[in-house]
């Protein structure tokens, strides 16, 4: 499992769990209100959840594999989706 402590494992797993919970709550809020900004935010948190999944994989599961580009790409997608949503919704 690599050199990380139990504390580190818990922190990384909590990041994954909480970001997934954020994505779930935001998707549910979007389904209730159909506010498009909520959809974009929910999608963004979906990508942040993926980012945290790669964090767990990078630090705990597969420390020997270089996963930094996947972590960075998923975070970048999260931001691109969110900023696109902000700019698109501001024009409405």
């Amino acid at each position, binding site marked *: 499992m690599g050199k990380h402590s139990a504390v580190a494992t818990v922190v990384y797993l909590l990041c994954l769990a909480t970001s997934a919970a*954020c994505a779930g709550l935001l998707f549910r809020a979007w389904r209730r209100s159909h506010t498009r900004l909520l959809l974009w935010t929910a999608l963004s948190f979906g990508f942040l959840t993926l980012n945290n999944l790669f964090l767990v994989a990078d630090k705990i599961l597969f420390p020997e594999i270089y996963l930094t580009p996947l972590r960075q790409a998923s975070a970048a997608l999260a931001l691109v989706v969110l900023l696109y949503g902000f700019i698109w919704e501001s024009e409405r």
Partner: protein
Amino acid sequence: MTEGPELFGYINGFLSAGFVVSAAFFIKFWRRTGERLFFAFACAFLLLGIAQPLPMLLGELGEQRPEIYLIRLAAFILIILAVLAKNVGRR
């Protein structure tokens, strides 16, 4: 093949700036609507923007201190609490 430190730092800076710009948008929405949920989102994204470059800036020290990811965790918890509080307020 790993990316060089310059590229790694550039991408980390881009991501950090993206989080901070997102926080600024949420502040704008909060001021426009008065919706406190947006203020919570702004604070959370600011935390994510601060947390993003820390492992890189702290270098080897960052590798030994995974607790710095607690800042990222705090951001997600803040959003969960804000959304739940909004749902409770609606009822």
